[in-house]
């Protein structure tokens, strides 16, 4: 089936079998390998992408269901080549990762949170990433990274003195 996907503000027309997950389509057809295949049945969260701004599991969706949707992957967050988004910077600075397998999904889940809540409490941060499993860090530095990015992004809108 022919499907039109708007990925990271770029339109792609792809030919997929109905059973191709959005995750496999992104990775194998569009070569966007930042969304990771973990459990492939919606438990681990490693395949998280944004669809129309909401964090969703790309393994729990067939590419045909995403026809016409605006999809954001980790590759679409940085403002320009060689740069990082404030969240990506914060993950580097607080070392919010170890093996890195869950990291793109954590950042996208956090991105969706900060887009609707500029000043999340610790509980709200924990809730936002509760569907994303990390087997290395114990989550503390991930939560710290998201809080740091939130603080910086609020600061961006403050007039300079």
């Amino acid at each position, binding site marked *: 089936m022919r499907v039109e996907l708007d990925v990271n503000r770029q339109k792609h027309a792809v030919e997929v079998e109905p*059973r191709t*997950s959005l995750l496999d389509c992104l990775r194998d057809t569009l070569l966007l390998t930042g969304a990771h295949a973990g*459990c*492939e*049945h919606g438990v681990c969260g490693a395949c998280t992408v944004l*669809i129309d701004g909401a964090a969703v599991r790309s393994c*729990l969706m067939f590419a*045909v269901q995403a026809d016409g949707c605006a999809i954001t992957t980790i590759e679409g967050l940085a403002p320009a080549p060689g740069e990082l988004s404030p969240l990506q910077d914060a993950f580097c600075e607080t070392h919010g990762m170890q093996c890195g397998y869950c990291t793109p999904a954590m950042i996208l*889940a956090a991105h*969706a949170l900060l887009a609707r809540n500029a000043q999340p409490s610790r509980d709200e941060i924990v809730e936002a990433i509760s569907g994303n499993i990390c087997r290395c860090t114990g989550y503390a530095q991930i939560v710290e990274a998201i809080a740091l990015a939130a603080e910086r992004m609020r600061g961006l809108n403050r007039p300079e003195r």
Partner: protein
Amino acid sequence: MKPAPFEYSRPAHVDEACALLAADEGARLVAGGQTLVPLMAMRLARPTRLVDIVRIPGLAYVRSEGDEIEIGATTRQHVVESDLIVRAKLPLLAKVMPYVGHGATRARGTIGGSLANADHAAEIVLVAMTLGATLRFRDGGKTADVAAEEFFLGPMVTALPPTGVLIAARFPVWPEQRVGVGFHEINARASDFAFVSAAAQVAVDAAGRCTRAAVGVGAATAVPLRLDAVAEALKGQTFDEASVRGIVGATLSAVDTMADLHASADYRRRVAVTLAARAIADAYRDAQILRDADAR
């Protein structure tokens, strides 16, 4: 973890979806797909055709209809979670929404999908049973209504005909001024399937006495259980934990609760008493806060 091959259709109308189901016995409806797709990935489900109804116009809405709130079947769960009409008029539904899966599955999952899937541990199913919702479906070119207690027949079994499409759920709104709600569940991890859950909605008078109550227990039996005897016993009473535990315990002693690897039947019955008592306590307290606010 790759599904078996299938055909995919995206009908423009509900009746067209019914026709696609009638034409192929192996066809299944999909909307959010948050339960069906993992089952397909594990090959526990192997539909020959997916009939995707999520883009059919006019099936995603929340609106006030007389003394009920009607929610379209393909309304996303995260939309219901933050809907202001739901918060104001269906506080029990608003209360349980954050417990349905997690944020990423609520962004795709639909109200109708959860109801039609009829998982015995599903929070939305518990609310539909507790409040006595009406389910509306389309089949053979006709629209029909069925009461929740006749709709849910067993775990993942409903009265929906094989060629029927659930189109809406109607939840009764309580007109009383001081209505409070409570909900508790126990599971291995937040967002996982509950072993036992309990929901309560209580209306109180100016003196804090119950004028109306609805209490339900989920995940402990094949279909969530509405405890009418408990609701009846609360009438005219202020909250008293010992007597609430007594009446819930007596009601559940005659019920066969389920047993599995995670929780025995006795455990489920014992926990159901505690969670129901907590949910009722919360509902009284919640209603009381509204009562105090009125007094000021």
